[in-house]
C-alpha cells in the first residue's frame, strides 16, 4: 500500500510499479479515491495524500482503514519537504507493518544543492530508505528489490501513537540530524507576481482569454472543421449511410441509426467529430495549469472573493476542474474541509459551470458573434454564480472553514504527463458520454417517429416560443440537454437562430440541469434531497434567466 503526504509523487510510484496510469497533478488532493493495481501478482493500492493519521477527514479515515489490511507500506516522501513528511512517516512506522520509505524528488534536492544523509535516516527510522526521482524512473528498481524482501516479513504489534506535539518534536529532531535545517523565505518572483492582486488578476484574465481563444477560435473552427466537416461528414458517414440504406428496410431501426437524430449520424458525429477535439484540447490546457502548480496560487488570490459565498480560496480548484468535467469536480469537492462548503460548491458547479465539451460548443457559437456578446455572456454567468453563492451562504446551515492550504512548488509541466492525462480524461469522457448520447439520440428518434416530439414542441410552446422566444424545435436540444448539457448545446448548432435567440438559448443551456452523471455523483456525495434540489434549482434559474433575457434583448 502506498501512503504519504499530498503531492509527493505517490501516483507516479504507483504507475511505475503497476504500469497502470493514476492521475498526477501539482496540487494537494489529486487522488480522491483509491487506485488499485498489481505488482508481481500482489495487489497495490494508491491512497489519497494525507498529512497525518488523525481520522480527521475522509481521506485519513480511508487510509487508516486500508492500513489495517496492508502487508507492506510504501511511504513516499518529498525530499524537499522531508521535515514535514517525517511526521506521517513516524505515525506509519508505529502501525507495525513492514515498511519502506521512498525519498522522492531527489533530483530537485540535487538541483538545489541540498545534502541529505539518507543512510543516517535509515538507521534512525529503522526501516529501509530509498532515494528516488520517480518521474524519471530513478530508484524504482531498488524499490522492487526491497519490496521483494519485505513481502515475506511479518507484521509487528501496533504501537500507541504519540500526540501531535511529541511526534512533531521527534520528526524535527530526526530531520535536524540528517539535513542542514532552516531555509529562507521561499516565494520566487513568479510566485509574487501570481499572488499579488493586480498582477495575479491580470494573469488570471489573460489565462482565461487565452483558453477561450484557443478553444473557441482555433480548435472550434480549424480543428472541428476537419474532424466533423471532413472526416465525419465527408469521409466516414456517407458510405456508412449508403450501406445501411441498402441493408435496412425503411422504418424505425433505420431512423434510430441514421435518421436526423440517429445514433451514427448525430450521437457519434457530435461525440467524436465535434466534442472530442474540444474536450481533448481543453484538457491539455487544464493539465498545464494543474501541473504547473498555478491553481493553488489562484486559490490564494481569490480567497477573499470566495468568502461572501461561504467558501474559501481552495474552492477555486474544483471549480476550475469543473470546466473540464463537472462530475469529476463534484467528486473533488471532497478536498474542501466542511460538508457545508461541499454542498454550496456542488450547487454552483451544477448551476453555472459549463464542462469542457459544453464550453467548446459555446465558444464555437459565441466567439464569431463578437466580443460584446461574449462579455455579456461572461457577465451574466458571473453575476448568477455570485448571487447564487451569496444566497446559498445565507441558507445552507453550518459553518465554513477558512483557508489553510499548502502551496506546492511551481514546476514546468512534463509534456508526457500532460498528454497522458489529457488522453486518459478524454477517453473517460467518451466512455461516459457516448452511451448517454446514443440513448438520447434513440429517445428523440422514438419521440419523433411516434409524433411525440411534435406534440412536445406544441405542448411546451408557451415556454419555448412565448417565454424564451425561441423556435419550437429547440425542445429537441433541451431534451438532449437533460441527458448531457454538452449534447444539448451541440443540438443548438443545428438550429437556425438569430443572434439574440442564439444568445438566449446558449445562456439557458449553460444554466440548464446538470448532466445525469453529475446529479448521480451529487446524490451519492450529499444525498437524494440535495441532488433533486440541485436539479430543480438549475432548471428554474435557467428558464427564469432565459425568459428575462428574451424579454430584454
Amino acid at each position: 500500500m502506498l501512503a504519504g503526504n499530498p503531492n509527493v509523487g505517490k501516483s507516479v510510484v504507483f504507475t511505475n510499479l503497476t504500469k497502470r496510469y493514476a492521475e498526477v497533478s501539482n496540487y494537494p488532493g489529486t487522488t480522491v479515491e483509491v487506485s488499485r493495481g498489481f505488482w508481481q501478482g500482489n495487489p497495490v493500492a494508491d491512497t489519497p495524500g494525507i498529512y497525518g493519521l488523525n481520522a480527521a477527514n475522509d481521506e485519513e479515515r480511508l487510509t487508516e482503514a486500508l492500513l489495517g489490511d496492508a502487508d507492506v507500506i510504501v511511504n513516499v516522501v518529498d525530499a524537499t519537504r522531508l521535515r514535514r513528511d517525517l511526521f506521517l512517516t513516524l505515525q506509519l512506522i508505529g502501525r507495525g507493518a513492514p515498511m519502506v520509505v521512498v525519498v522522492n524528488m531527489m533530483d530537485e534536492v540535487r538541483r538545489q544543492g541540498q545534502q541529505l544523509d539518507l543512510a543516517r535516516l535509515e538507521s534512525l527510522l529503522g526501516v529501509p530508505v530509498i532515494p528516488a526521482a520517480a518521474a524519471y524512473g530513478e530508484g524504482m528498481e531498488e524499490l522492487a528489490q526491497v519490496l521483494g524482501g519485505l513481502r515475506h516479513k511479518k507484521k509487528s504489534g501496533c504501537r500507541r501513537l504519540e500526540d501531535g506535539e511529541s511526534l512533531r518534536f521527534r520528526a524535527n529532531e530526526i530531520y535536524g540530524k540528517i539535513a542542514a535545517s532552516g531555509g529562507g523565505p521561499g516565494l520566487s518572483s513568479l510566485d509574487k507576481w501570481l499572488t499579488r492582486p493586480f498582477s495575479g488578476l491580470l494573469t488570471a484574465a489573460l489565462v482565461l482569454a487565452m483558453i477561450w481563444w484557443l478553444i473557441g477560435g482555433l480548435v472550434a473552427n480549424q480543428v472541428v472543421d476537419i474532424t466533423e466537416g471532413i472526416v465525419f461528414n465527408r469521409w466516414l458517414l456517407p458510405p456508412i449511410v449508403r450501406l445501411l440504406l441498402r441493408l435496412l428496410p425503411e422504418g424505425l431501426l433505420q431512423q434510430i441509426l441514421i435518421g436526423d437524430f440517429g445514433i451514427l449520424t448525430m450521437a457519434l458525429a457530435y461525440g467524436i467529430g465535434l466534442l472530442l477535439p474540444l474536450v481533448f484540447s481543453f484538457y491539455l490546457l487544464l493539465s498545464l495549469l494543474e501541473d504547473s502548480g498555478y491553481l493553488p496560487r489562484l486559490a490564494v488570490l481569490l480567497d477573499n472573493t470566495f468568502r461572501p459565498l461561504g467558501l474559501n480560496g481552495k474552492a477555486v480548484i474544483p471549480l476550475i476542474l469543473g470546466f473540464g468535467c463537472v462530475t469529476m469536480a463534484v467528486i473533488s469537492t471532497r478536498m474542501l474541509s466542511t460538508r457545508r462548503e461541499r454542498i454550496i460548491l456542488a450547487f454552483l458547479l451544477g448551476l453555472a459551470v459549463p464542462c469542457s465539451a459544453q464550453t467548446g460548443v459555446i465558444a464555437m457559437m459565441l466567439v464569431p458573434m463578437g466580443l460584446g456578446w461574449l462579455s455579456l455572456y461572461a457577465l451574466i454567468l458571473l453575476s448568477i454564480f455570485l448571487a447564487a453563492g451569496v444566497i446559498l451562504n445565507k441558507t445552507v446551515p453550518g459553518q465554513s472553514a477558512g483557508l489553510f492550504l499548502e502551496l506546492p512548488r511551481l514546476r514546468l509541466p512534463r509534456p508526457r504527463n500532460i498528454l497522458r492525462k489529457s488522453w486518459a480524461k478524454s477517453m473517460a469522457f467518451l466512455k461516459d458520454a457516448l452511451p448517454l448520447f446514443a440513448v438520447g439520440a434513440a429517445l428523440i428518434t422514438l419521440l419523433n417517429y411516434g409524433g411525440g416530439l411534435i406534440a412536445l414542441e406544441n405542448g411546451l410552446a408557451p415556454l419555448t416560443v412565448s417565454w424564451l422566444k425561441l423556435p419550437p424545435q429547440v425542445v429537441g436540444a433541451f431534451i438532449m440537454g437533460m441527458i448531457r448539457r454538452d449534447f444539448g448545446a451541440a443540438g443548438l448548432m443545428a438550429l437556425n437562430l438569430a443572434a439574440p435567440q442564439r444568445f438566449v438559448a446558449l445562456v439557458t443551456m449553460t444554466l440548464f440541469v446538470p448532466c445525469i452523471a453529475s446529479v448521480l455523483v451529487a446524490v451519492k456525495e450529499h444525498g437524494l434531497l440535495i441532488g433533486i434540489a440541485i436539479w430543480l434549482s438549475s432548471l428554474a434559474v435557467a428558464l427564469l434567466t432565459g425568459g428575462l433575457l428574451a424579454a430584454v434583448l
Partner: protein
Amino acid sequence: MNLLAAFPGKRYVVLKIKDPEVRRQADCLGMGEGEDVYCVARKDNGPVILGRGGQMVAVGGEIARGIQIAPWRARKK
C-alpha cells in the same frame, strides 16, 4: 500579536493556535506551536503566506486572526 500583523520577510515564532483542527494540521506540516516560520507575503485581511525551509502554507484571514505569534528574535532573548 496575531498573524495578520506579521511583516513579509520577518521571522516569527508561533505561540498559540486557537482552532484545534488548524493546530493539528499545522503540527503535521511542521508549522505548529513553538515552530519558527517566515512571513512570506501578506494581504491586509489575509491570506498570509508562511514559509519554512522551502515549504509554504497560505492561511486565510479568519484563521490568521486566531494564530498568535511573536518576533523570533524577541523569543531568543
